[in-house]
């Protein structure tokens, strides 16, 4: 698991962000926002499509936020507002201390040339360029000369495991390979912020899994700040530090995978979590009870479990080891609390009848 950097100021912060599609949405929204926040149905019946409704998010440096939602929930629009591919209707976006919505064209281009990278669902490669030239494209845009940009592009091509295919054209590659090119292109400028818009949705399930592994490997190595869009709840659980679940343009819940599975905030979120095998998602760390006051301070004896271990991986121990409490330690071996066997078994076997 990637560990959040000590720097706690968020790299991206958006507050009360709105995006409406319709006729003169700014004017309409300014009027509508004077009272209470307008409801989804109200906006629709007024002839507007609310793609993003009053979204406030903070994304910390080095964090991976996965935005999950069904199609039409506004997740792609939200990420396009955060990258300013679309102009938001109202609200504030701060990127690395800059007011994103106030940037002029030049400033926006500079920001994209130096700090942002994006991967697209259908790869969006330029068909007339080789792999190498596609990857070198953002470097060419900022005016790097042919030799240095190809050198850097070659490094990134190697990084994503496409060495030997750098002279291929996109149509000569499989879907998975094309998306590797898309990933390489988005990494060529060494961005701080990495947007991924359903990067693996167009791939078949086996390749998707490989690509997720590859992606985790890259992220371990690079530690980027990531906004990752998906409609696949399992993918979200697998990758995310935190998940934001969207419905009808609004964020229903933002939390770590453990917490979403254990404590879904709304019925809508709960419907996603129903089918999930919770023992594979929930980690010992999420169930830990702190060692209480003096009376209760004793560290449970026996072999401790690590906070990062999933309940599923502890199944055998939970069944065989009849002690009521286990000690839980973090990565450094420091004891952080205790795990109640009965609670863990509830997660493993489903709630007691």
């Amino acid at each position, binding site marked *: 698991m990637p560990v959040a950097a000590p720097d706690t100021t968020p790299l991206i912060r958006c507050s009360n962000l709105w995006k409406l599609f319709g006729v003169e949405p700014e004017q309409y929204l300014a009027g509508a926002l004077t009272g209470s926040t307008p409801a989804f149905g109200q906006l629709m019946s007024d002839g507007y499509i609310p793609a993003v409704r009053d979204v406030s998010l903070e994304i910390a440096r080095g964090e991976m936020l996965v935005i999950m939602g069904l199609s039409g929930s506004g997740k792609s629009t939200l990420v*396009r507002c955060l*990258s300013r*591919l679309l102009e938001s209707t109202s609200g504030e976006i701060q990127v690395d201390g800059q007011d994103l919505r106030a940037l002029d064209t030049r400033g926006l*281009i*500079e920001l*994209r*040339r*130096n700090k*942002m*990278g*994006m991967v*697209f*669902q*259908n790869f*969006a*490669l*330029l*068909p*007339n*360029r*080789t792999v190498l030239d596609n990857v070198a*494209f*953002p470097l*060419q*845009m*900022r005016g790097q000369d042919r030799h240095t940009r190809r050198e850097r592009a070659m490094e990134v091509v190697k990084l994503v495991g496409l060495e*030997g295919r750098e*002279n*291929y*054209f996109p*149509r*000569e590659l499989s879907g998975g390979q094309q998306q590797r090119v*898309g990933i390489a*292109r*988005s990494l060529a*400028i060494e961005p701080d912020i990495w*947007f991924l818009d359903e990067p693996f949705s167009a791939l078949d399930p086996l390749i998707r899994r490989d690509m997720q592994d590859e992606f985790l490997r890259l992220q371990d190595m690079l530690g980027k700040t990531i906004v990752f869009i998906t409609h696949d709840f399992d993918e979200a659980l697998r990758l995310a530090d935190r998940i934001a679940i969207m419905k009808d343009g609004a964020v229903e819940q933002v939390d770590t995978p453990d917490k979403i599975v254990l404590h879904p905030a709304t019925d809508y979120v709960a419907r996603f979590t129903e089918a999930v095998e919770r023992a594979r998602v929930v980690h010992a760390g999420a169930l830990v009870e702190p060692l209480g006051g003096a009376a209760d301070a004793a560290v449970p004896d026996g072999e401790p479990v690590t906070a990062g271990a999933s309940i599923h991986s502890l199944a055998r121990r939970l069944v065989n080891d009849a002690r009521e409490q286990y000690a839980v330690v973090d990565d450094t071996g420091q004891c952080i609390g205790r795990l109640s066997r009965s609670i863990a078994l509830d997660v493993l076997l489903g709630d007691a009848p």
Partner: protein
Amino acid sequence: MNTAVASAHTVDSLVDRLAQPANARAFGLVLIALAVALALLKPWLPEGLMRLPALLVLPFSDGLNWLFNFIKDDLGFIHVTRAFASGIEWLLDVTGNLLYGKRRWPRLEPIPWTVIAVSAACLGYWLGGWRLALLGGATFVWIALLGQWKWTMETLSVIVVAVPLAVLLGLSLGVAAWKSRRVEAVLNPLLNIAQSLPHFSYMIPVVVFIGVGPKSGAIVTIIFAVPPMIRMTLLGLRKVAPEVVESGEMCGATRWQLLRYVRLPTARTEILVGVNQVIMQSLAMVVLASFIGMPGLGQKLLQLLQSLKIGRSIEIGITIVLLAVMLDRFSKAWAVRQPEHFERGTSWVSRHQVLLVWVVLTAGVFALAQVFPLAAEIGRRQAFTLSKEFDAVVGWMLEFIDPVTLAIRAFLITQVLIPLRDAYLWLPFTSVLMLFAGIGWRVGGWRSAASCFAYVALIALSGWWDRAMITAYMVSFAVFLSALIGLPLGVWAGRKETRAQRVLLACDTMQTFPSFIYLIPVIMLFGVNDVAAIAAVIVFGTVPMTRYTIEGLRGVPENLLEAADMSGASEGQKLWRVSLPMAVPTIMVGLNQTVMFSLFMVIIAAFIGTQDLGQEMQRALSSTDVGKGLVLGLCVAFMGLMVDHLIGKWGAERSRLLGITS
């Protein structure tokens, strides 16, 4: 399975629903009834309702002439066009010098024919392998051997100049229209009219501004070829996937970089299809430009046809067809050509094999041409000719066919064409006006009724009503026969995939021929008269009809056919109840094209002696009467636009009801 049965059911109920009259448009029926009443009451009608009183005929042509004179002389526009024309002339001199040794700068010898043949073969190989290499090489060998080299090069020297200029102009206008809604709003109606104006309408203003000769030929060719390029550029730029543009934006591309590196390269295929259309339009126009003194193959063909030298005409016809097929296949191959990578470590030599072979071969034949003059130029005297053989074969054939064609001709003229023409001329113009307004109302409500009314009324106001009715009678009769031939042919061909592909290939090939070519066989068979003109129109018009019928039938979703099979439909039921109803929108597109093609062809056929708008247009051309020529051209365009509007509207409505989105 369930869904398949359900979809068969939906088709049936849809067909039933389509058969029901649209009650809301009943007013259209009233108008049509009025039209019938006007026709029936003709003997009692006042003169003013039969033909537009001469008083009301507006002097459009005088107005246009005044406008043109004003622009030309008072605004001094003629100096601009003359300057532009001399620029073109300089380019034509250069290509003329290189291709057929015109004595102008750069005063080099003409390129030996062997060099051009070898180059065409190498280019063909690079674009599409052996078959295209053979096509390219053989075309030029044929041209050289038959002694048509100079005329062909005269024609090509114009194409070589006109095509790049038209492409450049079309591309810039296309980008401008894409960038600005306002430019597009201005360009769109202009393009609609431009693409339905007959060829001759373009020539007359050019003759006024520039005069006759090769440079006018080149300029009229450029103007004629630009519209499809604009359309294809616009289409290509619109079709670029939004994600690809977004990816460019996220790479920090400026607007110019987006256009230059992202949008245009991604729209490559459409743009190159536009180039293909420019080339084919240029060839068609450059051949016809012989009417305004453009030398080359067209002029030769015109002279030979007028003096009824069939054998020699066939030779030239074959040359034009070979050129057309070669240019079409080459440019299409270029459009679909996909880049391919070379493995790492491939040497420069093997990456540029074709280029090296070309250099070596060219040098070889160039040297050969210095030693053997025949490899440089084949004069008329040394050339082969097959004209005697062609004449013999044609004569022998005609001996058998003549009685038949004579009978057909006599029957058609006395029993069909003359009565039909008289019937069209007999109709009061008010009746026609009401008829089309009524049809318009039924198809698209009052808006369509108003536009149809306006089109017919403008034709009446132009004062060329009778001529227009003659054009209309020839076109409608020809379209009727084209549909009668094309539909069954398409259905027959569409029943088997291999046959469908063969017929489609034939249609494709025939569509690349310049329209002029179609006159050769019909003159051969029927001589110079109305029947020949209509026969040419029918042959020309059947091609799109057949083609779109096949494509419509092939486009019927497989699961619908399976559903019909499982519902126990016989082959006939499947065709009538499922395939044809589903294919109707596509077939309508074909009908639309057939009408357009027929209109163009009828006008071109004027010089073999028709009495319609085309004949008047030829007169306007020879007396350089711009106003008259344009008014006549607009009459033709209005007919075309009206039919286009009606069929397009109706087809779109059908598609909507069938749930087909195009």
